[in-house]
């Protein structure tokens, strides 16, 4: 059965280095999964295209018709690659808004690979002190290697090779997690399996 790999990129410029990193991570993960005999279909979400939908969701409390399938894709995915630019020492506001409107249970147990980009390598700890705790809160299973790419990683030959190595290692970790699990088939319908009222009356909510 083909697995689903959700890829969320919070880059703002076009083209963006955040998307570039997301694509490299995606390709590496697809390859690593293929080596493990697992077929996977990436579903890429560009948050920039949903910036207004996300703001509307904050105000109205529900996802509009454009945003709903995106939230369903992420909640139902077998794995997630999430990449954000680092702004003011943390994930971008757009990225956090997306996380804020996800169902609380949407990523419980989901294998997640985290990536971040910034203009300077001085931001790289944001991956570990901002992104990692956020996904720990969501009960996601985050792979040990997070991939940070600063401006210099895209150019200098030595740095660029190191980036490639980190991407390969992180993708391998994600692929190991996905290959070791059965497909999710996560139930997203809150009305499918009701708590019988007798149980509610007994205080078993």
């Amino acid at each position, binding site marked *: 059965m083909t697995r689903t790999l959700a890829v969320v990129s919070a880059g703002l410029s076009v083209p963006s280095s955040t998307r570039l990193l997301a694509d490299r991570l995606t390709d590496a993960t697809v390859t690593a999964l293929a080596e493990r005999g697992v077929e996977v279909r990436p579903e890429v979400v560009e948050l920039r295209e949903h910036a207004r939908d996300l*703001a*509307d969701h*904050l*105000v*109205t*409390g*529900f996802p*509009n*018709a454009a945003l709903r399938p995106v939230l369903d894709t992420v909640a139902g995915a077998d794995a997630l690659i999430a990449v954000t630019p680092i702004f003011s020492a943390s994930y971008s506001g757009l990225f956090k808004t997306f996380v804020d409107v996800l169902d609380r249970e949407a990523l419980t147990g989901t294998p997640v690979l985290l990536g971040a980009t910034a203009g300077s390598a001085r931001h790289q700890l944001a991956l570990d002190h901002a992104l990692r705790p956020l996904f720990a809160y969501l009960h996601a299973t985050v792979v040990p290697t997070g991939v940070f790419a600063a401006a210099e990683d895209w150019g200098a030959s030595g740095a660029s090779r190191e980036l490639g190595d980190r991407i390969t290692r992180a993708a391998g970790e994600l692929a190991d997690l996905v290959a070791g699990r059965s497909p999710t088939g996560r139930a997203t*319908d*809150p*009305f499918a399996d*009701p*708590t*019988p*009222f007798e149980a*509610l*009356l007994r*205080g078993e*909510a």
Partner: protein
Amino acid sequence: MQFGVFSVSDITPDPTTGRTPTEAERLQAVLRIAEKTEEVGLDVFALGEHHNPPFFSSSPTTTLAWIAARTQRLQLSTATTLITTNDPVKIAEDYAMLQHLAGGRVDLTLGRGNTGPVYPWFGQDIRQGIPLAIENYALLRRLWDSDVVDWEGRFRTPLQGFTSTPRPLDGVPPFVWHGSIRSPEIAEQAAYYGDGFFHNHIFWPADHTRRMVDFYRRRFEHYGHGDADRAIVGLGGQVFMRKNSQDAIREFRPYFDEAPVYGHGPSLEDFARETPLTVGSPQQVIDRTLGFREYVGDYQRQLFLVDHAGLPLKTVLEQLDILGEDVVPVLRREFAARKPAHVPDAPTHASLVAARDEALSQQTQQTQQEVTV
């Protein structure tokens, strides 16, 4: 089918003038709106309950009693009565009082309330919202259905030999609707008791309402109250009308853009597409409203929100005129033509008394037969 309006009692500045009505003005306006609801031939007026500004309606039964005294036919209801932060004993008393004063023209819609700070003001905790709604309603039912109640629960002091007074009019308590936007537990509660389920149907897309009502109907049948299509469903809805739809959009837009709940978010056009909001001609409102039954089935009560977001009283009264003259007569005819005969109407005091009497006489016949045998 019943048609009416519901008001949440918000005090909101009129964005076109910047003027905020006083509490006294808003309260008087709502009384006038309720009277007008009957004058234009609508059936139901429902009022919200809130305990924090910018709302004024802390005591809906007081207001509804005044309205009852000034009207003849109007069914009085709430949108909603807080089952979480009110003592169920006080709800049992207040609504039985109102029922007597209004000659039975009373039902109520229970809701949880979603404002965190309100709960501790009444000694409660919003995190217990669902358990409070479940326990408090179980007690409310006991207080209305039994003359003497011994009771002990988690959330209030125990009762020993307590009789809530006055007893419900003719021994039949007011009909209860359970309102919830998104909690399956509340739809489950409505289904379990065979009560009505009301969906606000304003803030969320139609597809969500469809799933929630469908769930309630399935569970209503599961609990043995009859086929799913006999369950009692009420919907909200939000409209603004002018003869010419472009005039309606132009006039309503500033109110929409500044509205307390969804303002400063989606455009009016986006929100009208995503939710049941209809801003346009009376015919557009008729067409959209008739479409509701295609996704919730044949239902019993349609309430419109027309009084909110700073709209001036004069405008609200004009909206009621349009509803009464151009919209509701057509809806009555068209809904009636589509409704199968076995789908019941919304319960009223008279129908509940008749149902109770019939059940009693069947019981008596059965007992007599047993005695004869």
